[in-house]
């Protein structure tokens, strides 16, 4: 009988340490790469195809969600051959609406869950929350981890919670695990939380909810990419990455792609493995694409806001 290779869960207190000065230095190097001409156009289109177009507000309505879902499929029809975004990201209550609105377009519907954004709810509530989103047809679940438990040192609790949600997602939905790095603390903690999420079954690790001041940054994302890389070396399994919040310009987005390419390789350069959680990024990319095509920057009034 062939023995199945089992995954050894590491001791998370021994996650690799991170030198912040070194990380920032490396991060700066990506930002000095100069991306021009055809490689810039290719990158801009790639960025569009990787966006999770997001609305996560208390005031979300059917109308708002429908508008966003249309935009997801028709970013800028004046420019032929543009991709759609990767997914729309909404609250569980809006999953059904979004699902119907993007039907047949290939755009996925992602739902935040597990008492997003704080995660301060009992596991049963988190499971119900997730189950509802799945029943509504969510293709992807963006869960938050219990940062309070993490800071109490209860890594097993955090791990088990992720594993339970993962089990619920089963084959239907890919699981993105939000670390909320702005609350997690140092880069050492970002690395440890990444390891916990990955070994517990995350398909994607994601930086932030976008609901607190501190969101995605290149150094934080770089730290998470190293965790993904180490896991890939060890197991051969790819994990996706989603920086979210604070990425609103094309230039910054392209530097994220440079980083992904140089740390993980070209294999990660698709929306199966890399996403941007962003709402205003798409329009800046569209402005840049028009600039590349026409040589002029256009007024923002030529690009729809939703």
């Amino acid at each position, binding site marked *: 009988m062939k023995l199945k290779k089992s*995954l050894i869960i590491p001791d998370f207190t021994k996650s690799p340490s*991170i030198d912040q000065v070194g990380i920032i*230095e490396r991060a700066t190097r990506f930002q000095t790469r100069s991306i021009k001409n055809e490689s810039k156009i290719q990158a801009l289109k790639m960025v569009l195809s990787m966006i999770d177009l997001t609305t996560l507000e208390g005031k979300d309505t059917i109308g708002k969600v429908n508008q966003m879902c249309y935009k997801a499929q028709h970013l800028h029809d004046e420019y032929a051959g543009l991709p759609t975004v990767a997914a729309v990201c909404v609250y569980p209550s809006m999953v059904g609406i979004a699902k119907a609105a993007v039907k047949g377009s290939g755009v996925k519907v992602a739902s935040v869950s597990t008492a997003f954004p704080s995660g301060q709810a009992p596991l049963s509530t988190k499971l119900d929350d997730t189950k509802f989103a799945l029943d509504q047809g969510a293709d992807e679940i963006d869960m938050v981890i219990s940062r309070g438990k993490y800071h109490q040192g209860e890594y097993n609790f955090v791990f088990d919670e992720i594993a339970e949600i993962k089990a619920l997602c089963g084959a239907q939905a890919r699981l993105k695990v939000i670390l909320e790095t702005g609350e997690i603390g140092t880069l050492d903690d970002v690395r440890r939380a990444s390891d916990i999420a990955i070994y517990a079954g995350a398909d994607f690790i994601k930086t932030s909810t976008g609901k607190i001041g501190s969101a995605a940054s290149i150094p934080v994302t770089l730290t998470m990419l190293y965790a993904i890389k180490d896991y890939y070396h060890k197991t051969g399994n790819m994990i996706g990455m989603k920086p979210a919040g604070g990425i609103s310009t094309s230039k910054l987005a392209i530097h994220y792609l440079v980083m992904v390419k*140089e740390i993980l390789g070209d294999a990660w350069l*698709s929306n199966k493995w890399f996403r941007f959680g962003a709402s205003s990024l798409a329009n800046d990319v569209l402005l840049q694409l028009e600039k590349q095509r026409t040589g002029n920057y256009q007024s923002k009034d030529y690009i729809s806001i939703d």
Partner: protein
Amino acid sequence: MSKKKIETEKISWEYAAAPESASHIDIKEKYDHFIDGKFEKPSSGKYFDSINPATEQKIASIAEGNSKDVEKAVIAARNAYDNVWLVMPASERAKYLFRIARLIQEKAREFAVIESLDGGKPIRESRDIDIPLAAAHFFYYAGWADKLEYAFPNRKPTALGVVGQIIPWNFPLLMAAWKIAPALACGNTVVLKPAETTSLTALKLAELIQESGLPDGVVNIITGDGKVGAEIVGHKGIDKIAFTGSTEVGKIIQKTVARTEKKVTLELGGKAANIVFEDAPIDQAVEGIINGIYFNQGHVCCAGSRLFVQESIKEIFIKKLKDRMETLIIGNPLDKNTDIGAINSKSQLETIQGYIDLGKREGFELFQSSCKLPKEGYFIKPTLFSDVAQSSRLAKEEIFGPVLAVQTFRTVDEVIEKANNTPYGLSAGVWTDKGSKIFNLTSRLRAGVVWANTYNKFDPTSPFGGYKESGFGREGGIHGLSAYLKFD
């Protein structure tokens, strides 16, 4: 665990060429010596070619110096010292240095492009490191010019006189700044010789000095090969020699000046140990090792050319090193995305190739990144030899190229012993998460500079210099002032 196979698309995203424009630079066809504030034809009437190592094309003709040119320069420098520079209030001297610093900043782009054209180093480095640091050195020493008695309380510092300075080809403008700025701040005048393969930025600096209005003869620049250097070293009218270059030449200089009153500082070769412990932040250590050896194509006297990695993490560490090497971009030095440029000269290329062949013959495991090299120009792939023996020439001799020799170790004492087991002692690196380990090593490693969890960091406030055959005397910081002063 059910494994859902997710197919990956074949995506290839390459960076398009992003060359820095060279249209804004101004290079003359022919450059003369800079003596007494004017450009003067060489008395030999001869010129030699300066070559772009990335294209093997000639850039300009450079004057070939001889003893007569050196004589003229020394007379000019002596004259300027006695009649102008020495008697000028120190605060006035400082103003000139500040002006030179600001002019370098203003012309930074032009200097960066010429540095890359002439020397082969990537524009990213000349733009972000060489030129800004050169300006920073002038700024820093300008500040000291009128505060020398506070730098050395109760010691009455005075200038030495005329200083002969001979600089290498690896950081042409930066080394000129390292030498000229403290010398002038301390009240000396200068006769400087750049390396023959990289004279251009020193000559552009001469133009800039002219523009700054620095009194004639305070800085004189004579171009040429080692013979001109020997003339400077042997000249009776020179009070001090400052040399950066090979240990071999350093020894000759020391022999020459041994019978004279000349003061000397020598900054020579190195074979630095970069030591990685198992508790180090691994990915940042990998990055540090890469920067330590492949920075400026390995043409760095303090390059971390010996990697000591703790045996318990050897495999993963070397795998990560190789992965990182694969992402280095080698090619046109003027492309903004180039990480590794051209080897400075054909003879250096042959030297490095000789060591790579030696490593192969000796049977060490060779790894080179799979990148394609440009068809023209002097290029070498980033190279790594693993399991190198301490007794191999690869681990003992300075290669001055992008070749890393990897060794393993087991204990702290063992690695200190091995790291110190070299005739050199310029620099070292330590990578560990444990502060006490850092302090233990920094106090026991016999090297002038020890970096902890970083490498190849330079700052005008920080002294730099070697132990043993890496030379003596310090450049940079307050220490760098005392090399250009005498005390009553």
